[in-house]
């Protein structure tokens, strides 16, 4: 059952990324290019996602301890805002700006079979593994 939920959630997420064109690196870069050919579309992606998830969360989930399929609902992390978070987010932002690709859209692009995107994904996975080691040692 968990597998089925995972599959359906993944399909909906992937369709959302495609319909919104978050999967298009050029569109993402134009969104970030305030001084150039700025395309504000992706603000609407963030808006739609935050309204749907946020409303649903505050209406149906907040205060619940267990999910429907019996896992604990994770609490919002109360960890301090530390160097790992700030440095990690900065590094991530630089990489996102260079490429116009973040992890969700990267995976969603696999079916497009663009060779350079597939290479990007392999390097990104190597980066994730390196980042986990940094996180343990920092």
């Amino acid at each position, binding site marked *: 059952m968990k597998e089925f939920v995972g599959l359906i959630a993944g399909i*909906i997420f992937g369709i959302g990324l495609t319909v919104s064109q978050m999967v298009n690196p050029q569109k993402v870069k134009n969104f970030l290019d305030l001084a150039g050919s700025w395309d504000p579309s992706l603000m609407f992606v963030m808006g739609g996602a935050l309204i749907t998830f946020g409303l649903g969360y505050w209406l149906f989930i907040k205060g619940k301890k267990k999910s429907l399929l019996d896992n604990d*609902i994770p609490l919002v992390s109360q960890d301090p805002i530390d160097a790992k978070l700030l440095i990690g*987010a900065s590094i991530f932002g630089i990489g996102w700006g260079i490429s116009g690709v973040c992890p969700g859209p990267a995976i969603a692009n696999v079916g497009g079979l663009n060779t350079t995107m597939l290479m990007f994904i392999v390097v990104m996975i190597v980066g994730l593994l390196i980042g986990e080691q940094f996180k343990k040692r920092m």
Partner: protein
Amino acid sequence: MTEFTPISAFIGGSLIGLSALMLMYLLGRVAGCSGILSSALKPFSLLKGDWSWRVFFIIGLIVGPVFVSSLSEFSLPTDYTFSSTVILLGGLLVGIGAALGGGCTSGHGICGMGRISKRSIVATAVFMVAAIITVFVTNHVLA
């Protein structure tokens, strides 16, 4: 130039939000793509019952776009070529940063911000600003 597409962007974004809501309501899990991907790559023995839904999420994330591309005008872009700088530097930084910062656009930007997590709000602000500065430098200073 890309065309301004607020309606399809909003509809697509709402679907992403719906997916994140499903995962949290039904499974009690955060829809963070970098976290799901790195956990799915770990051996089954480390996560046991919490491993396979992640693998299926990744499969769905790959299949969904192919499915919608074949049925509608919305499709995966194919006509771009990344330079080796983008592949090596971009890929590495996206991966390292997401792992070190504990999340990416989906985990911090949607699930964290949607739950008013201070860490996620700060992380999202930092990576947005870093990305905007990076694009300014690559498009207007170095170009």
